[in-house]
């Protein structure tokens, strides 16, 4: 009964799933999410394709040995710089939720997850002086967006012997952008203007994955994913479609010592498929992205691997939606993390601290992301 309640409770959460916002999420579909649990975030994302609590590879679910639910919260503190000014930004997001578990009597596991696919949470402020009646008039504009795309994944994995695991996932990609444009005039004789619009998105995708264990100290993982396209409605009227990318990933995991695990992975996404669609809608287009991440996890006591492990990692990624046509943003991050299990390993928390640098020409973000993951194995 308690398991059912837990699942129901967690199922209510996806409505608030978001990733960290950024000025690099202003264009296109927003800032891409990473579908990582905190454990993988702490190690830079290097373990993402092997991590059952993350949603990058459906085959990784095979490593789930008990019903597990994971909830992630991220608090971001960033400094934004662009030619207009600099500002400090704080944001709170809940980018990852996963529930999964093994199927009795079968070497298989199933699970569902809600991940942030893209995030368009931002408020941009500008000031200027206009001259509507021959008199200079100062105005303040804010343009804000709330929302983004969420990725609801139903996935299953099947273990083929001791070494192989394969998996498949069905993705429902949906979400909305609630856009608001506000103009406030410094002359009280003018009313402020507030205009709203809502974009909604819907699409489906599929993913396949596999992991191959080569002995106890070496493993490979791979995934391929097709997200088709999303239909875009503005204020309930269909305005077009945007092609979503194919994604390909390859990961490797090593255990050079009993207390140390090292992993790395790369992901390639064909976001350029959305380029023409976004340009046609007045955007700045899209470009393919590449991401590489490496990480390590050190465990002082190999018999108790969840007792305050030390995780370190780094990653580099290019961003899909340029602020200025022809340019491409990039992101670099270093991270550290740890975690603990308690209540006979039925519950646990993971912490990750990531320092990120994002830049595209004169535009840059840098700051810290603090993530907390809560996992329950009822």
């Amino acid at each position, binding site marked *: 009964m308690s398991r059912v309640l837990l699942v129901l409770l967690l199922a209510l959460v996806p409505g608030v799933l978001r990733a960290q916002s950024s000025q690099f999420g202003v264009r296109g579909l927003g800032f891409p999410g990473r579908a990582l649990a905190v454990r993988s975030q702490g190690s830079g994302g290097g373990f993402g394709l092997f991590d059952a609590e993350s949603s990058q590879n459906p085959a990784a679910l095979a490593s789930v040995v008990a019903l597990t639910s994971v909830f992630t919260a991220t608090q971001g503190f960033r400094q934004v710089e662009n030619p207009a000014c600099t500002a400090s930004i*704080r944001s709170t997001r809940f980018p990852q939720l996963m529930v999964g578990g093994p199927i009795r009597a079968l070497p298989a596991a199933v699970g569902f997850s809600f991940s942030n696919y893209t995030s368009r949470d931002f408020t941009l402020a*500008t000031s200027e002086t206009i001259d509507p009646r021959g008199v200079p008039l100062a105005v303040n504009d804010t343009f804000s967006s709330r929302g983004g795309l969420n990725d609801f994944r139903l996935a299953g994995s099947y273990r083929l012997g001791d070494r192989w695991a394969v998996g498949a996932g069905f993705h429902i990609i949906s979400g909305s952008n609630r856009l608001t444009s506000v103009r406030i005039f410094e002359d009280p004789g003018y009313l402020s203007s507030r205009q709203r619009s809502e974009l909604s998105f819907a699409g489906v995708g599929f993913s396949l994955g596999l992991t191959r264990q080569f002995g106890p100290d070496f493993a490979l993982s791979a995934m391929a994913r097709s997200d088709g396209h999303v239909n875009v409605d503005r204020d309930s009227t269909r305005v077009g479609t945007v092609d979503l990318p194919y994604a390909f990933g390859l990961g490797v995991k090593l255990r050079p010592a009993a207390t140390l695990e090292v992993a790395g992975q790369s992901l390639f996404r064909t976001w350029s498929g959305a380029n023409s669609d976004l340009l046609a809608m007045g955007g700045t287009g899209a470009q393919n992205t590449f991401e590489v991440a490496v990480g390590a996890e050190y465990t002082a006591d190999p018999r108790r691997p969840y007792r305050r492990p030390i995780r370190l990692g780094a990653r580099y990624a290019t961003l899909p939606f340029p*602020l200025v046509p022809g340019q491409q943003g990039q992101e670099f991050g270093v991270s550290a993390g740890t975690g603990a299990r308690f209540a006979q390993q039925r519950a646990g928390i993971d912490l990750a601290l990531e320092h990120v640098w994002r830049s595209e020409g004169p535009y840059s973000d840098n700051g810290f992301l603090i993530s907390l993951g809560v996992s329950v194995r009822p």
Partner: protein
Amino acid sequence: MNRAIGLLLAAVVLTGCQEKLTAPADCPALCPGGQPQVYDEVFTAIAGADSSYTGYVQPHQAASLLVSNGLQGFEELSLVRFLARADSVSLRDTLRSYTIDSVAVSLTVVARDTNVDGLQLLLYRVAPTFDSASTYVDVAPAFVPESLIAAAAVPDSLNAGVVRTVFQGADLTRLQIAAADSGKLALGVRIAAPTATGARLSALAAGTGPLFTTYVTLNVPDTGTARLRTLSLSPAFNTYVSEVPQVTDPTLLAVGGAPSSRTLLRFELPARIRDSATIVRATLELTPVAPVTGLPTDPARLQARALLSDVGAKSPASPTVGSRGELPPPVDTLEVGTTAVTLEAVRLVELWLGSTSRPTALVLSLLPEASSFSRLVFYSTLAADPAVRPRLRLSYLLSFPFETP
């Protein structure tokens, strides 16, 4: 220990959630859809569809009585007829006659030119036969020195308030009511001052009109206080008359005066504005034929109300005060000497937008109606000079071109 640390961290992170998402934007890179554009456009009232109508509020229905001594080059006199005073009072189920001890007449000054000192309100006995049809010519002969009963000085320190005149002793004969008048006292009020000026006195319609108070002692063999009575009478009728009747020019637009005039203006807004614009400022621009006249320090207020339906002179308009979530209609204060009138009417024009059946028309009136020394006369759409025709200047934004996505 681990559990405590974990719970503490979780509490810190989850309860410390704060959002601050506003960042400076550098356009055009960070301005998807661009920036809002404000358009400014002038719409002249529909030619020939602007009209003035007169007769909404008559002088005897006004909230104020006007008295002036040439403020606008002519005189205005006020007239008050009080309710009939009974010649006996009921005491212990018996009507008793009484002896008048004293009488007081109270007038409430609503507004006056506070720059003018030495003001007097002259009270005259007049025949109680005047009515709403009476004119200055009809009543002016009664304002002669022989019928003057009192000159009530308005203290220089009194900007607004009650001016009370008490009659007693021999002066009571001035207020003796003839049997033919059936107990009705009628007074005429004229203003006297070192310079041309005027004053507004509260009228019956305002609920605080003139008051006629008689202090009497009942003729009964009783020494108690029951013998002393006060008989207070409010007006049965009051009005004011002007030495020069107002003249209406059908080629011009009149607002105010007595009987009061209102002006109806009709505009035609294009569909792109009615359907999808956000009006941020709407200014009604009117050009008076002559600078605004009136009582200094007591400016009139021009009010514009949206029509609910357009059926001409009797078109229903939005309430004079806000109701049902609507804000009060726009009002502009008009100082004496104003040569151009601009009325900010954005809240009114907003009512015309969207899928509404409301006519794009408004009615102008002067507040207080028929109770102001000001009467506005504006050029109409028939004016030869397009620059002086009534017009509406709109500043608006069209639908913001939100990038998709």
